[in-house]
């Protein structure tokens, strides 16, 4: 049997004293940029029941962000909405499945992803360590804002019910779910799977797999930058954001996760500020974090909080 998670594990993540001030400044800068939302129908991907669009909006640094937007062809005047956030290496999917469940759904390609990489493209591997010595230019500064602005995009849509917006994703999408729920009070429910970007400095000691290994690669070549790297990452760590979350939130982790160590999932969950939170640890599972079983839990969670009904599968 593989090793179990040490219950005494203590995360090294410490929230910087000026964390809120840093992100308030970033948000002020972002909010000064006009959103310029745009929808372009995609007849190739649309069908009788689902309308599919290429979506675009402008983010901080005036960077144009692409996304996929799907909505049920037959819908109420005001429809609940889901933001789907992508994994580190994955190509953002067309979220038809969510639209079939009754949600307007937006699948975001933050900067550097395919379709959003004309102005910014550090590549993979590389994104994780791009300008990692400086929080003001670190890749994830803009990347995070791109995901937070997705909520503004949904709020610009007349068919979206602003009081019923949820956010979800797994791996990097799980980490981004945490930061988005923390920074956007309009988010009413959040489901984070196998959250990445949480406990960076813990993870690089607990695992030697990519993508976190990118940080170890960087520090092996540039050991003199360690203090700056650790300083920067504290501003971007999902654990530092977690106490700002106030909406209902569920988190699922795999106890044999070889990408995002479960210790970091426990540490994150402990710091989440919401009183309505629940952790689903799956023994015998890796970075899938029990997805095959847990997807029904996620469906029920959003149905309860956004559709206002209980569902069973």
């Amino acid at each position, binding site marked *: 049997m593989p090793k179990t998670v040490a219950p005494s594990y203590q995360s090294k993540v410490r929230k910087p004293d000026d964390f809120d001030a840093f992100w308030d400044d970033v948000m002020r800068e972002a909010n000064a940029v006009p959103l310029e939302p745009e929808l372009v129908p995609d007849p190739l991907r649309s069908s009788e029941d689902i309308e599919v669009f290429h979506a675009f909006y402008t983010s901080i640094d005036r960077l144009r962000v692409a996304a996929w937007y799907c909505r049920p062809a037959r819908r109420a005047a005001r429809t609940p909405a889901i933001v789907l956030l992508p994994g580190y290496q994955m*190509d953002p999917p067309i979220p038809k499945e969510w639209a079939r469940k009754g949600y307007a759904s937006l699948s975001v390609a933050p900067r550097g992803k395919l379709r959003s990489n004309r102005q910014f493209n550090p590549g993979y*591997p590389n994104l994780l360590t791009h300008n990692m010595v400086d929080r003001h230019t670190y890749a994830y500064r803009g990347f995070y804002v791109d995901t937070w602005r997705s909520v503004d995009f949904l709020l610009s849509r007349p068919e979206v019910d602003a009081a019923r917006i949820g956010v979800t994703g797994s791996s990097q999408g799980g980490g981004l779910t945490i930061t988005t729920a923390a920074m956007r009070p309009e988010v009413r429910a959040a489901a984070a799977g196998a959250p990445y970007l949480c406990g960076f400095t813990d993870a690089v000691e607990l695992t030697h797999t990519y993508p976190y290994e990118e940080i170890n690669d960087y520090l092996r070549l540039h050991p003199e930058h360690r203090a700056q790297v650790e300083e920067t990452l504290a501003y971007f760590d999902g654990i530092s954001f977690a106490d700002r979350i106030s909406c209902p939130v569920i988190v699922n982790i795999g106890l044999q996760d070889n990408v995002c160590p479960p210790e970091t999932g426990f540490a994150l969950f402990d710091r989440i500020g919401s009183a309505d939170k629940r952790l689903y640890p799956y023994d*015998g599972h890796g970075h899938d974090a029990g997805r095959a079983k847990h997807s029904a839990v996620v469906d029920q969670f959003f149905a309860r909080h956004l559709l206002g009904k209980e569902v069973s599968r």
Partner: protein
Amino acid sequence: MTEPTSAAVREFWKGTLETLARYPARPEIELLPLRSTPFARLFGVRLTSLGPYRLFGYLSIPTGAGPFPTIYYAPKYQSVLEIIPQGTANLQRSRYVTFALAGRGQRNADTPYAAMFPGLFTDGIETPASYVFRGIAADSVRGLEYLLTRPEVDPSRVVVAGNDLALITAALAAGATHVVTTPALFYKTAALAPKTQAYPLEELNDYVRAYPARAEAARHTLAYWDLLGFAPGVTASTLLMAGAPGTLLDVAALQPLAAALRGSVTVYESQQSLYKDGLQSERWMAAQCRIEDVQSILPQRWRE
């Protein structure tokens, strides 16, 4: 339009490989210090393939005296090229030569052609000659050909790993001694796609819905890529990774494929756990390559 005959399929691939052979690989290799470690050096490799088209791959070579067992990671269906698959212990590179290739359209091999995901699966599907996967299959063959020229590679222990392209490559090119394949795109595609709404097979459904007049031509093209046609050409020992029971590509669905492979076959049924499925694959490759201490190259979280 009728199904192509076996002879037509054979002739198509023979012609493709002959065309590929007209283009010398002209490899360029460059050390990448950022990704090199005390136990392995990493190189970026550029190669010419059919087209001509310039490709890119990550070649990792263990420190010490070789030759070494080798894993060739055939092109995946995603834009990102990984050095080794996400979640694999970096220490895998201490024991195996690894080579991961970006097929045309993937990152680092995306000029002049940048693939879209979704989109790649039906690009040029109107005819076998125009289908983008003709070039991608040739790319994958070219990658294996290059790898086998490396003196660090032990030719008696060469695993080709990936999805459909792993099996296709092992059938089209000599040199694979072992295959780990997880079919996803090219097994009875035209029949199975209508049974799912999940991408990437949904790309075919989108295409057929948008262009019904081209549906028959797409089905005809896909017949040239069907894994059942390639299976008799695979003599390598194969680990066939099937889906969980009831899924589109479960053990029952893949049984004809398993039966058609000429080498020894181990069929594994997914436990819907990346841990259990990944552990099976790592152990199988290590056993086949006579690596006794597989524990030392597993992710920490998986070690006993």
